[in-house]
């Protein structure tokens, strides 16, 4: 299943809840302000690093670019996708759950 998160982890608990309620093997795509959850060295980074083993994480490139976040600032192991990649993920996965 594909889960999307569009809120900053410093302001809302959408990412935490997504990780608590998504099954191992899920794909998690960070979009809009959700991309701040992918920042290496932040207080929220542990959310993702603790789940890298059994979840696949993606961030939407255009949203990174809009916010001035370079790929070098991301937690290692997170993949950047463009809009086509987003569509591909959504089509490949049987269901999409949006954590807003």
């Amino acid at each position, binding site marked *: 299943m594909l889960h999307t998160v*569009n*809120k*900053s982890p*410093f*302001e809302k608990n959408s990412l935490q809840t997504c990780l608590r309620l998504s099954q191992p093997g899920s794909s998690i795509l960070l979009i*809009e*302000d959700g991309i*701040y959850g992918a*920042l*290496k*060295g*932040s*207080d929220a*980074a542990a959310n993702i690093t603790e789940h890298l083993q059994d979840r696949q994480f993606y961030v939407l*490139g*255009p*949203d990174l*670019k*809009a*916010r*001035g*976040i*370079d790929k070098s*600032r991301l937690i290692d192991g997170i993949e950047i996708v463009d809009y086509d990649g987003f569509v591909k993920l959504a089509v490949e996965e049987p269901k999409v759950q949006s954590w807003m």
Partner: protein
Amino acid sequence: MSDQEASPTSGIIKKFLYVNRRAPHGSNYAQEGLEVALVGAAFEQDVAMAYIDDGVFQLKTDQDTSEIGTKNFSPTYRALGDYDVKKIYVEKESLEKRGLTQDDLMPLVYEDEDDDWAEKPMINLVSAAELQDIIEQSDVVLNF
């Protein structure tokens, strides 16, 4: 001039502090906070900006919204100096929590009229304790 004509430009200068706590592109708060601050500054009020929590992301370098189809208002922060805004406070704790340092922030400057228009940095990193005093000493605090 009669007393009735007292307008914001005719004398009373108040200390305005605009507190910005939202990330830049996920909602309109950031852009509106910036525009309202510029309007206030155009009326020759003493305007200072504070960036705390996700608001610190507003000052991040290299923002480029061309691929998300929204207006890139990031360059407008550089106009604050033209509007005589000279004080930008960024809370250290908020930056650290997000894995950011001052190098991640746009190098905003103003030109000091009293010092042969020398460019001076506007951004001051302050601790929460210092920010408490700044908020306390402001006449009007507006939140975005």
